[in-house]
């Protein structure tokens, strides 16, 4: 069984989503062999050397516990946690994947992505993306002291939130033509991505071939969602908080 999640945007400002995720990792996820996190696990990640932060440390420890219990965890960068690096991978036991990533199972093939690279209609966003995904820019940022990075991250979030206020939907969608090209390049396999916060299952007909595109749901304080591949079909599963002592 394989599980897919994305867009949890974990931060100390969202304790409910954090609790859901910890519960998910300790419970539901343990029944699967593999977990794919398709971007924006964190609301912000300013470098692997920020492990002294207690919130980050708790997430890392929970991922490590699941890895140690036999769950294979794979992570694709999102537009918030693009600085997740080898230090994070080593600490959690997760592997970092390139975007897009082809996933072949004995039964079916998938192409996995965060999804933001196809939002070509949003020129401002694409310019931002080109900057933050530039290795030289990232290296220069990581060379700055943690305190300074924190200030920069806060500023970037303010700019992002300000630009989102002017839009009907703060998350732009994938460009249709680029998506068709993408599906063509990836041999019409089932496409799974996040980023848009518009969970839905889309049917594309590309070159006369039917291709499914599954958009993962973002997580909220009271509710998360994972997509489940059980070897035969994909289905969505809601995650709510369990009552416990």
């Amino acid at each position, binding site marked *: 069984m394989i599980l897919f999640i994305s867009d949890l945007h974990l931060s100390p400002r969202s304790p*409910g989503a954090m609790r859901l995720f910890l519960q998910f990792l300790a419970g539901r996820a343990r029944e699967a062999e593999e977990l794919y996190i398709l971007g924006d696990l964190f609301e912000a990640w300013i470098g692997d050397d920020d492990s002294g932060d207690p919130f980050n440390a708790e997430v890392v420890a929970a991922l490590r516990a699941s890895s140690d219990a036999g769950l294979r965890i794979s992570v694709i960068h999102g537009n918030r946690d693009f600085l997740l690096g080898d230090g994070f991978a080593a600490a959690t036991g997760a592997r970092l994947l390139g975007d897009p990533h082809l996933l072949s199972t004995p039964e079916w093939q998938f192409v996995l992505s965060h999804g933001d690279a196809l939002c070509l209609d949003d020129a401002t966003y694409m310019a931002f993306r080109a900057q933050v995904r530039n290795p030289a820019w990232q290296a220069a940022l990581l060379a700055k002291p943690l305190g300074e990075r924190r200030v920069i991250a806060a500023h970037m979030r303010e700019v992002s939130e300000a630009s989102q206020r002017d839009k009907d939907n703060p998350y732009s969608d994938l460009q249709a033509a680029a998506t068709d090209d993408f599906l063509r390049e990836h041999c019409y396999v089932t496409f799974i991505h996040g980023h848009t916060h518009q969970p839905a299952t889309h049917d594309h007909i590309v070159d006369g071939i039917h291709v499914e595109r599954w958009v993962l749901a973002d997580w909220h304080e009271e509710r998360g969602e994972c997509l489940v591949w059980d070897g035969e079909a994909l289905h969505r599963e809601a995650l709510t*908080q369990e*009552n416990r002592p």
Partner: protein
Amino acid sequence: MIKLTTNHGVIMLDLNAEKAPKTVANFLAYVEAGHYDNTVFHRVIKNFMIQGGGFEPNMKQKPCKAPIENEAANGLRNKRGSIAMARTGDPHSATAQFFINTVDNDFLDFKSPSGQGWGYCVFGEVSEGMDVVDKIRAVRTGNKGFHQDVPADDVIIEKAEVV
């Protein structure tokens, strides 16, 4: 007194409205609404507790009312035979699900009004039928769906009533 008639026998509960007024009022409201009739003890861990009140047989979750304030700071302890409210990670999130401690669980007691320290609110104790609780705690359990520690054969609360 509350009488829980289960398929393993009768459990009598003495509620402490003086120490846990809101929690007791909440529990009584669920009893009087018939909420607990035909629910199961769905989480049974022998040397910990038996938890129920939220699911019908076949693990169908029942709708609940609004969550209540956590009154765990009332001095009542999670000792063997006490009944307390289950909740999510949010301290003030108890609704209908409750549990009966099968051993002394000091670590569930209130420590401080913050995060992990809140503990779980005890609001009464088993006055008769601890032998029934002991029968239930010993049933065989396994995984059902993604729930763990679920009795293999349903442990059913057939009726909950005020007597």
